[in-house]
């Protein structure tokens, strides 16, 4: 059974008098454990697709089944629940709370899941350990480097043990060396059996994935699976 099943998904926006067809008719199936990159030039609909996959937005037409649940018909609050349970987001701009420590930033999704304080802290610590930030637990984002910040964000995405890790241009704000380091974490997450979805416009980033879905003008232009790229020598 597929983890993600999109069937004839269309998303249209009203822009004044004009109707924008961001996605025309997209059908995708993604199995559990896949490492997928979604690529396309700007205006291709990849951001719209990411928002739909992340349950941040609902399709105008078509069905979206995530982990056996039809999310295309859900209301705001149900979607919030699904996002909390099923999806770990990693954003280009990190999106950490500036006033909160790394630990508290990682705890955040667990708060919304209603996890009691002690367990929350325990799990957040574990997640930070997984990204190698054990010694930065009490640091605030402005005391961390860009790469460290993104690692905190990855810990935050992991902490709920979601079905999907959804990364939107995760290296876009990092220099290429740090970017490679970050990609290394995604490779490891995928290797550990997580389902990882990358949205990117950079071929070198997409090269990390086993499957690349290319969008153009709101439709799938190519969907190619390939053998895993061997880990680059350090």
């Amino acid at each position, binding site marked *: 059974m597929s983890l993600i099943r999109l069937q004839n998904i269309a998303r249209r926006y009203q822009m004044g008098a004009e109707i924008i067809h961001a996605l025309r008719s997209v059908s995708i199936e993604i199995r559990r454990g896949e490492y997928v990159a979604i690529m396309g030039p700007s205006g291709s609909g990849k951001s719209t697709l990411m928002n739909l996959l992340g349950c941040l937005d609902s399709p105008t037409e078509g069905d979206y089944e995530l982990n056996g649940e039809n999310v295309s018909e859900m209301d705001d609050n149900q979607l919030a629940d699904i996002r909390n349970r099923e999806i770990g987001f990693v954003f280009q701009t990190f999106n950490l709370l500036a006033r909160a420590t790394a630990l508290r930033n990682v705890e955040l999704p667990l708060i919304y*899941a209603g996890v009691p304080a002690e367990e929350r802290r325990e799990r957040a610590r574990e997640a930070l350990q997984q990204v190698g930030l054990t010694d930065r637990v009490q640091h605030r984002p402005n005391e961390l480097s860009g790469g460290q910040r993104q690692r905190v964000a990855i810990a935050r995405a992991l902490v709920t043990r979601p079905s999907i890790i959804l990364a939107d241009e995760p290296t876009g704000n990092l220099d290429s060396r740090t970017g490679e380091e970050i990609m290394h974490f995604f490779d490891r997450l995928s290797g550990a059996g997580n389902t990882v979805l990358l949205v990117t416009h950079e071929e070198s980033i997409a090269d990390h994935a086993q499957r690349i879905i290319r969008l153009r003008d709101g439709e799938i232009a190519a969907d190619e699976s390939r053998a895993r790229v061997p880990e680059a020598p350090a």
Partner: protein
Amino acid sequence: MNLLLELGEGLRIALEAIRANKLRSILTTLGIIIGVVTVTLMGTAIDGLNRAFMESVAKLGVDTLYISRTGWFVESYEQWMSLRNRRPITLRQVLGLEEEATLVTAVAPIVETMQSVKYRDREAQSVRIIGTTEQAVLTGGTGVARGRYFTAEESDGGRPVCVIGSDVATNLFPHTPPMGNQIKIGFQPFEIVGVMEKQGSFLGAFSLDNQITIPVRQFISHFWHDPDFQIQVKVANVAWLDEAKEELRGAMRKVRRLEPGEPDDFDINQQEQLAERLAVVSRTIAAVGLFITGLSLFVGGIGIMNIMFVSVTERTQEIGLRKALGAKRRTILIQFLIEAAAICILGGLLALAIAWPLTLALAQFMPARLSLPLVGLALLVSLLTGLISGFLPAWRAARMNPVDALRNE
């Protein structure tokens, strides 16, 4: 996610946000502080006023009726014109009433004037001189602190004795005990037989202790030959107040020889009438106070609303992130409501800190006290102001679309 956890988290975020914007938060609370200080001071003042009213009214006694030529409250010029032609109440009528009334324990004629009083080289100006009988000690409800009241014999025989109020006693006899001494009221000598208990003032207008009580016959012969009397009547049992009033009315008509069908040419007053009047006055003051207070709180509330809109706009991305991580509409709504409420409660606490010394200062001039219910009210008002003015901004935040909010830079 349960509500308690949500409230706790909301409070934590709110305090972080307030701490991050200290100056702004303090400036914002200024409106609330002014509003709550007004609420508190106004409440204190109204409280004190009511208490003073009630104390004064209580001095009249629940079981005491006051008969006089006119009522206590004359509503209009026309009414006054019709009242002023009523015949005065004479001493003979008072004595006649005493004979007739059965449901009462005491009937005292009251007549008063102002005189200066002298003891040797000490003089007190404008002392109230009251002419009455020994019954007044029963109707007035004030006891004798030292010495005694004058007796029925002294009253009937018109002996020149007097009972002085406590202010008169301290003014004329700062060092020596007053009893047995002779004072001069006007030019007439009177022997002091007693000093009354301290009574305080009536409605803050005049002191009830700056007075001297003398036998009514002395009063008539020295100060006023044909006065218009008032009558104080003590009813035997409070439960019979209405019956006693009816009986007194019949008796008054009889002693004043009114024909059947003629209207009463006197009025019977009681505590209740004054209490009602004062209630109207204090309600009016409270209404005006509430309006002013409401206005200042309204302005403060608009300040809070404004700053909360700013806060929501500034934190659009944060709202988007929280929503992406699973915050529901309700969670965001509660978060911002708590922030607004926290700012207002902070303002309320600061306001109380300011109002407290102000109340103490105010207490020098009038009965004022910062009571616990008032403190509770002030905090409740701040909380409500926060919730009401924070609602619209919080609602806007709660309804934000996560995609747009996240994209916001």
